[in-house]
């Protein structure tokens, strides 16, 4: 059970002067209960890739499959594919449409044909997952703060109980507190068996929380692997628009002057090593 992409190519406006190769030979895999992060600079093709994962866009060549179902235009399985893969767009709060939060949260389960007596518990559960209580159900989404709207938009996708959650820059514009709340929620969902695919340019989140990372550079896959492999790649190669997180950059700089230093993005690990060096555990 996984989302699998093989040798995906996508060109916008083929055959016109605006023709742009957005994705070129990109492959990835993410199972249920795994966290894959897709990183890359603005314009690297991250969002285009995300939109292939539940059939908003279709490949020119290559394949996308969800739990063995091919994502192709007019697939008889399209409904199951879209039910399995919940997509949270960039700035999802711009898509809130309902008169109250309850209606907003009922939309996905109603579409999936969930029995009406099960919808209210689903809505409530989705609200509590994003840290809001039932008092929000009767409120208009338009009268909420920016952070609350974002949470409602995410809850409306969770209410459909997707097996995979694809999120396009969900932390953009959130304060650090809300960002932490959101990454905690994603870690919990992953533990409970949801596959998480996070599109982000926050390498700090990607390195700390993912099982694997796909790095895109101008539509091509620059690297795909475990966070430690991606970190080694970034230390050795400069990728436009991507910066190592500060702790990783500091650790790489110390490593250049002292090869015994660990190459890490983990603050606690780097601190332990610095303190050991300081208290006389200095290596030759």
């Amino acid at each position: 059970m996984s989302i699998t992409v093989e040798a995906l190519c996508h060109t916008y406006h083929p055959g016109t002067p605006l023709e742009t190769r957005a994705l070129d030979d990109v492959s990835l895999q993410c199972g249920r209960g795994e966290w894959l992060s897709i990183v890359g600079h603005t314009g690297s093709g991250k969002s285009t890739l995300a939109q292939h994962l539940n059939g908003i866009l279709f490949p020119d060549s290559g394949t996308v499959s969800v739990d063995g179902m091919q994502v192709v235009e007019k697939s008889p399985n399209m409904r199951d594919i879209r039910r399995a893969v919940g997509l949270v767009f960039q700035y999802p709060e711009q898509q809130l449409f309902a008169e109250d939060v309850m209606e907003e949260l009922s939309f996905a389960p109603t579409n999936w044909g969930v029995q009406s007596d099960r919808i209210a518990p689903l809505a409530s559960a989705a609200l509590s997952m994003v840290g809001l209580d039932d008092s929000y159900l009767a409120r208009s989404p338009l009268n909420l703060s920016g952070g609350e709207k974002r949470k409602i938009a995410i809850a409306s996708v969770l209410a459909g109980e997707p097996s995979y959650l694809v999120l396009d820059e969900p932390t953009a514009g959130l304060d650090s507190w809300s960002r932490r709340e959101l990454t905690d929620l994603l870690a919990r969902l992953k533990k409970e068996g949801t596959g998480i695919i996070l599109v982000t340019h926050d390498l700090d989140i990607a390195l700390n929380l993912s099982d694997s990372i796909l790095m895109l550079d101008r539509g091509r896959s620059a690297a795909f692997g475990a966070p430690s492999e991606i970190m080694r790649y970034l230390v050795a190669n400069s990728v436009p628009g991507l910066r190592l997180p500060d702790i990783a950059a500091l650790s790489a700089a110390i490593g250049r002057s002292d090869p015994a230093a660990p190459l890490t993005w983990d603050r606690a690990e780097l601190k332990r090593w610095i303190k050991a060096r300081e208290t006389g555990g200095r290596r030759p």
Partner: protein
Amino acid sequence: MKTDARTVCELRDVTYVYPSGASGRAALSGVSLEVREGEWLALLGSNGSGKSTLARHLNALLIPTQGDCIVYGMSTRDPANVFAVRSAVSMVFQNPENQIVGTVVDEDAAFGPENQGLPPAEIESRVERALEAAGLLAKRAKPTYTLSGGEKQRLAVAGALAMDAPCLVLDEPTAMLDPRGRADLLAIMRALHDGGKTIVHITHRLEEILWCDRAVVLAGGRIEWEGGVEPLLRQDGALRKWGLDAPPLVALWRELGEETGLALPRIPTLEGMIDALCPLQ
């Protein structure tokens, strides 16, 4: 009453309640604050703390429900002052898409000075200086839709600079930018500060205030803390209480300072930390 010549803006016991606010709760309660000439002031707070509401008082977009806002000695309450206030204090907002009015880069930057009724030669020279400062001179003839998000935000800054206001208020200017766009914009803000501009920088990212002169923390519409950047970064529990997470490098700097005798920089910039922690090669 005349304010101190060194004060650019002053809030005196300002309370603000949004007229449409369903809750009737004050977005700002009893806020007093001075912005001093030439300083780079960080205005911090989590989502909903009242920092944008405060910023909108500084150029008379909002008028206090109670209390007063004084800009260069002029009360924003008097409609006769609004033009002069807005010529003294320029705003840059969060979303670059909402701030572009021109179809070509230099046309957009000229919008402000044209509205000020300046002679064409003066507009021309101001636009050139502003685009230069924002790193956009090479793109002056490009259509605005071809700019990246980061470039659009720099164009918004150029538009504000072209007004020649001595004070610039930026409301979360980096929130919608990628790391590259954010770094570019911060570099421009540093250069403007070095050139003597007064900057009020609203943000919830502590890594952006490392070069600021002073920081003010808002929570629940009140000022909770005011002081230098270094003492603010040394707070830990309090930062979390205000919804401000210390970035990992700041946390490492604080912890190493508390737990070791290492000589660390006064402010934890990456360059400073590398210098302090890498033995001479």
